[in-house]
């Protein structure tokens, strides 16, 4: 059993596993894996538009996944990326629709506001953990729901756009949209922002005292405390930063794709991002690769559903299985190290 599992280690094993599981889901739905996969890949990579949509999904997953990576590194379970993404988007959308500054300044401001929104939401959980010792798992989970209801209330009432038919803010004027990265697609330079954050995080983790403390706290909190790390400060700070990174993602979705805020901003990116962070082994650069892989699944899943009749929800089922198996793999890898 151990041997079979350890052959699954490494990104190649993860890909193999995904292929096998996907084939199974396709066969059950009555489609041959060849038809299913060709629909998936054509839908994800078959042309400029398809590639654009895949990279849009990659971007939307990458922000929360990087935030989660930071928190997990500190041994903190941030399961609230979904709510942090939403709050970041809400802050950016509400202000973006209301003010008019020079475009470059306003766009920068909106992305920063996204960080503030997500940062506050992560920070609340961090403060509760640091101040009261409250479980960040429960706190971030609850905050997801609070964010969803709060956002719904605000955009149904006070923040609702004057011309909006549903629950959404007014549209951003076109000069405040994030510049397009790939012409004639919805892909914005948000992807570049996400990749830059990944590089910065990699540097922080490997080359700074803060990154070292983060890992020390994650792996041996008592030892870290005794060596002089301020546990409380590090706890709220890493959850706030984690939320801030996810929050920028929300602002990028608003300014780059939707051009307004509505509550359907995320179809569960914050939860899928947990799988992305784990597949990327909590290493920011691998997380980027993993986000692209999951971007293919998200974007191609829709095409697969349309042309090969395989329900796209199969993808979430598979993500869950991947999380379970990868978590088991970690144990096996650790076990072999000891032996």
């Amino acid at each position, binding site marked *: 059993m151990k041997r079979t599992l350890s052959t699954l280690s490494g990104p190649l094993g993860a890909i193999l596993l995904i292929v096998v599981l996907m084939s199974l*889901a396709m066969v*059950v*739905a009555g489609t041959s894996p060849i038809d299913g996969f060709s629909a998936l890949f054509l839908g994800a990579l078959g042309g400029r538009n398809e590639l654009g949509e895949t990279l849009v999904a990659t971007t939307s997953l990458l922000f929360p996944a990087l935030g989660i990576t930071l928190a997990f590194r500190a041994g903190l*379970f941030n*399961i609230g990326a979904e709510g942090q993404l939403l709050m970041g988007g809400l802050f950016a959308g509400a202000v973006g629709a209301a003010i008019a500054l020079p475009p470059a300044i306003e766009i920068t401001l909106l992305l920063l506001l996204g960080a503030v929104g997500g940062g506050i939401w992560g920070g*609340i959980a961090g403060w*509760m953990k640091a*101040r*009261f*010792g*409250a*479980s960040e*798992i*429960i*706190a971030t*989970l*609850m*905050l997801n*729901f*609070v964010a969803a*209801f*709060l956002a*719904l*209330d605000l955009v*149904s*009432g006070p923040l609702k756009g004057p011309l909006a038919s549903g629950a959404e803010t007014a549209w951003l004027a076109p000069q405040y949209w994030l510049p397009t990265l790939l012409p004639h697609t919805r892909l914005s330079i948000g992807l570049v922002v996400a990749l830059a954050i990944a590089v910065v995080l990699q540097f922080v983790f490997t080359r700074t005292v803060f990154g070292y403390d983060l890992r020390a706290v994650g792996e041996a909190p008592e030892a870290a405390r005794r060596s002089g790390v301020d546990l409380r400060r590090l706890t709220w700070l890493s959850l706030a930063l984690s939320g801030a990174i996810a929050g920028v993602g929300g602002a990028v979705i608003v300014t780059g794709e939707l051009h307004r805020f509505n509550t359907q901003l995320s179809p569960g990116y914050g*939860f*899928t991002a*947990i*799988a992305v962070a*784990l597949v990327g082994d909590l290493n920011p650069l691998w997380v980027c690769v993993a986000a692209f892989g999951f971007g293919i699944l998200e974007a191609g899943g829709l095409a697969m559903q349309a042309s090969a009749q395989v*329900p796209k*929800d*199969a*993808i*979430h*089922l*598979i*993500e*869950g*299985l*991947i*999380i*379970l198996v990868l*978590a*088991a793999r*970690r*144990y*096996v890898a650790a076990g072999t190290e000891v032996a």
Partner: protein
Amino acid sequence: MTLAITLVVLTLIKATPIVYAALGGVISERSGVINIGLEGMMVAGAFFAVIVSYATGSPVLGLVAGIAAGAAFGYVLALAATRFKVDQIVAGMGINLICTGGAAYGLVLLFNQPGASVQVRALGSNYWALVVLAFALAGALHVVLYRTPWGLRVRACGENPFAVTSAGLNPLLLRTYAVVLSGALAGLGGAFLSIGELNLYSEGMTAGRGFIALAAVIFGRWTPLGASGAALVFGLFEALQFVLEGRIAWLPPSAMSALPYVAALIALAGITGKVRPPKADGVPY
């Protein structure tokens, strides 16, 4: 007066699924395994109860299937937590994704429609028996945990599994039993939602009750009676939404929906530090 009666009745009904899940949370955490997959196990229970009721025409068999489905995912978590020493939170989140994604996939495969199943035969007025059973089980579980040798052993697993080993027992086996039972209870809670209160499965119908149950476990200080009491309070919040809907004009409807979660957050901050979780809660053995 009628309003008060409506409120009490609604509170009991709304609290019931949370009580089941919270009892599942208590037994699991008492044995040392945090079951964050309660939400997914409720989904599995709700989904399979409908499927089997649809296939056999018997809601009772559906109920059994719901319990079994929850127990099966409980076993998955138990395996992950005991044999593979997987991080319990990660495994639980994985189970949540598997169950919600799997149910959505199943809906399209079986009923060829996303969002909701067709209507199936439900328990009808018999569902009152499940309301009573929830509170009876709370009492029973309290007795089992505090008055029987098995209960003592389970609690010992959550405090100090090494001591359990020195007493010649297998803490991994005890944890497995506890987590399977936990899943069965969550599955029962889910089945109550789909074929008790309603007669179909619809996506998102568990609406975070499995997570609310985790909070109820904390407020109930990891005891069955305490957790059920906390579940009643959450049930009251939910019932208030229905009773007050439209009566308070200035209060937006989703603010009412957010109330249980905000209350959970405030209580979480207020109570932590004053209560002590089982010592080995969440720690792999």
